[in-house]
């Protein structure tokens, strides 16, 4: 529209004026338009994504406490500190346990719900909405309901009330790490929050399975139920299943909200991001060590994503982060 903005954003274009000039009109206007359209996004991407990554690489090699313009170069000291820090290494263990619980359970529950809803003839939309509704809640809201009501460690918590009917003693769900009941709280909260979302993905995939397959199977004598599920539905859902597992893993890796709110002020059950939060923004404000931790986590997640892509056959741009 206005040529002034266009020229500002088209910064890189004037660097090579010669190739654009001879073919006048089209090529020139394409280049200009390309930068006009992508300019705002790319500037922001550079400033708020690439610069922070670069800066954190830089900080990770310095002693940077309470300052972001450090002077004391310390080489790999921050890295060795983080990698030998039992809290940080422990947080990776916490993530592993969490992923081992949450990935299979969410996968199974969301697939189960999708199968149920897909079979319904009446009230299908209603039930779909019910299972989907928790997606509207934030992790903070869910953590609050879980901590203050369902899994409240005192007598009037819902779970303890129900257990009391069966004569079971009160359980301190979150306040006591042994036995680690807090996993029940954390996993059930996330299950409630995200199963409906993945159910939608499975539903869409289920509806894309051609009906002829089931007809052919029936003719071949396959019994409806387990046999058709095992030999037709499940293989047909393979692509969606692997995508869901990958998404679940990445989401688990970034878990923060519910851990932070459910287990505030405790020293157990800290996943990597919570640990980083306390390292970099806690009392010590150790940006150097925090940055080193962020770099380590980034490298890990890149490695996992690439490995998964290799083994599960994800092509570029299949739309799964």
């Amino acid at each position, binding site marked *: 529209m206005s040529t002034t903005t266009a020229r500002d954003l088209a910064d890189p274009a004037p660097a090579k004026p010669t190739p654009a000039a001879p073919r006048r009109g089209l090529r020139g206007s*394409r*280049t200009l*338009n390309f930068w*006009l359209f*992508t300019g*705002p*996004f*790319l500037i922001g*991407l550079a400033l708020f*994504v690439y*610069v*922070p*990554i670069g800066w*954190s690489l830089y900080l990770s090699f310095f002693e940077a406490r309470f300052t*972001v313009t450090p002077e004391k170069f310390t080489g790999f000291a921050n890295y060795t500190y983080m990698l030998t820090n039992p809290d940080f290494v422990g947080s990776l263990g916490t993530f592993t346990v969490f992923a081992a619980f949450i990935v299979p359970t969410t996968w199974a529950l969301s697939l189960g719900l999708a199968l149920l*809803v897909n079979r*319904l003839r009446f009230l299908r939309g209603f039930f779909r909405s*019910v299972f989907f*509704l*928790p997606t*509207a*809640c*934030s*992790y*903070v809201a869910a953590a*609050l*309901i879980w*901590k*203050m*009501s*369902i899994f409240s460690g005192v007598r*009037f918590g819902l779970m303890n009330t129900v257990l009391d009917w069966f004569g079971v003693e009160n359980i301190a769900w979150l306040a006591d790490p042994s036995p680690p009941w807090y996993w029940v709280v954390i996993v059930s909260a996330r299950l*409630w929050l995200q199963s409906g*979302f993945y159910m939608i*993905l499975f539903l869409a995939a*289920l*509806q*894309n399975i*051609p*009906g002829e397959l089931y*007809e052919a199977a*029936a003719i071949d004598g396959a019994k409806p139920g387990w046999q*058709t599920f095992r030999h037709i539905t499940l293989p047909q859902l393979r692509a969606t299943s692997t*995508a869901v597992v990958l*998404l679940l893993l990445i989401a688990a890796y*970034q878990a*923060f909200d519910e851990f*932070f*709110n459910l287990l*505030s002020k405790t020293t157990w059950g800290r996943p990597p*991001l919570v640990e980083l939060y306390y390292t*970099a923004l806690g009392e010590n404000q150790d940006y150097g060590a*925090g*940055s080193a931790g*962020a770099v380590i986590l*980034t490298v890990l*997640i*890149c490695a996992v994503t690439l490995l998964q892509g290799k083994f599960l056959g994800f092509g570029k741009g299949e*739309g799964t*982060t």
Partner: protein
Amino acid sequence: MTVTVPRARESAPPRPVRRHGSVLGNAGLYLATGIAAFLFLVPFYLLVRNALSTDAEITGEHWKFFPTDLQWGNIGALFDDSSVPFARSLLNSTVVAVLHTAGVLLVCSLAGYALARIPYRHANKVFYAVLGTLMVPTAVTFVPSFVLVSSLGWVDSYRGLIVPGLFSGFTCFLFRQYFLGFPKELEEAARVDGLGYWGAYWRVVVPNSLNFFAAIATITFINGWNSFLWPLVIGQDPSAWTVQVALSSYMTNQTVVFHQIFMATAISILPLLFVFLFLQRWLVQGIAQTGIKG
């Protein structure tokens, strides 16, 4: 995508197999679904019950199914309490979620369109620069991002809350994929009418893509409203808290007032329930199309 979904739905019911499923089987199906639905609704029940009870009823000796007198006064009490600036946090969340959504749509759709449709020699290199950022989840880089934003002096400001989150490589990628499938004929017609790329984009491409924009907008708004980590890091002063940070602070308050906490949570969820009830079509479409939140 939009083409496959309706067609799939027509061919969907593989029902003939199931027709001899007995009445008993159907009852079992509805029983299982019903129990699951009941369990999914329990937290909502607790939320409403506790929000409208007195604390004595919540903590009473025997479980009270529902308060005898609904305590609507709890709403007023919540806003009167000055220890947590709840009204301010609602305002902050509204501003942040709305501007976040508008900004993401504008910036990412323009870039996505250019990557899909404007031929330029180095477009591929630019595209890879965008794809590369998908490898690094933004949540993991919150430490360096905070360092940057704080050195810009943007802590405790709307700018700091909103701007860094606008440049989503993933949303840009989604727009590119969508525009790759946008009918070329429409743009060519616009070109014949003498419109340039910019004019064609605003007069032809955007008006014909409103469904897709609505789907992305719904998901982006929900994520903006519900996000917690970044607002927690940036909102150091209570006046800059979003509603999620305010809720979190209720939990760590010295004195716990149960009905207050639950009323605050209920109110914080209301806008999104509205989105769910009235925009579910776009939301479901958006999820099916994108396969991911944010």
